[in-house]
């Protein structure tokens, strides 16, 4: 009899500790959808790149002395990336808010605020750093840079949400670093990370926490 009460006490302590310091309503399914958006974006980027390299071969001579044609391409890729990010953030926010409402967790509390701040710091630094790379025409390192900084953002944020996010972050950092050694295959690594990894980890978290 007594030991039942102690067991309740322990589980109450654990519950309070995690609920007060972590935002646990993060939706796993939104991770899966973010991965799908990233793959769609990668396909568009791939088509656009193909188009570029075709005309590139034909018109190389004509272009070589003209203004850098790459600006149009970089801008298009940037627009695709921004659309993917916006779609992923909106989906993540909507699904997490719905999950929080269901479980009775406050959406805007200390834990979710800390989660957001700690996720955004490395993310914005990485974003600005990527723009600087584009500014200096080092655009072949942009894919690696976004992967590494996104991974760091996940590792940093994992203290304030489901612990699994940490392992996804580590995976992103690793393939980001590996991709630096395969210049020219940035888009494939990008699709592997933002597409495939999101889908894998998202569905793992979905089956672990979302379903019931």
């Amino acid at each position, binding site marked *: 009899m007594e030991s039942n009460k*102690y067991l309740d006490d322990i589980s*109450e*302590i*654990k519950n*309070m*500790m995690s609920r*007060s*310091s972590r935002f646990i309503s993060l939706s796993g399914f939104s991770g899966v959808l973010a991965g799908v958006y990233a793959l769609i974006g990668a396909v568009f980027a791939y088509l656009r790149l193909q188009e570029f390299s075709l005309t590139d071969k034909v018109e190389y001579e004509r272009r070589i002395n003209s203004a850098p044609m790459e600006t149009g391409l970089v801008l298009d890729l940037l627009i695709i990336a921004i659309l993917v990010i916006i779609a992923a953030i909106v989906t993540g926010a909507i699904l997490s808010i719905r999950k929080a409402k269901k479980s009775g967790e406050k959406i805007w509390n200390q834990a979710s605020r800390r989660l957001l701040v700690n996720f955004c710091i490395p993310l914005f630094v990485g974003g600005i750093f990527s723009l600087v790379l584009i500014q200096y025409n080092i655009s072949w390192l942009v894919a690696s840079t976004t992967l590494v900084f996104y991974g760091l953002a996940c590792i940093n944020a994992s203290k304030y949400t489901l612990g699994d996010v940490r392992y996804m972050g580590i995976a992103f950092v690793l393939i980001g670093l590996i991709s630096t050694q395969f210049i020219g295959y940035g888009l494939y690594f990008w699709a592997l990370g933002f597409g495939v990894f999101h889908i894998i980890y998202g569905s793992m978290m979905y089956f672990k926490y979302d379903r019931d």
Partner: protein
Amino acid sequence: MSIINNINKAFDHRIRLGIMSVLMVNDYADFKMLKEMLGATDGNLASHTKALEKSEYIKVEKQFIGRKPNTRYSATKLGKAEFKKHINALEKLIGK
């Protein structure tokens, strides 16, 4: 014998257990946050924080944010140590 001694009567209530748990993992918590977390009424929460303050397990700071009074709580060194002992005792009791 000694395990039973480590069960601290001061923590032997759901609300007090909750207050200490929140303060173990957060540097600070204000009254509103504790209220939301624990689902307690103002009076209920106030009496339990007062009891924990009296045993010097938590520290209370009153301040103003703009014009609004704000009370924030933090666990003292003593409180953290005692609560850890309490958790260890609970875990040992379950293990038996």
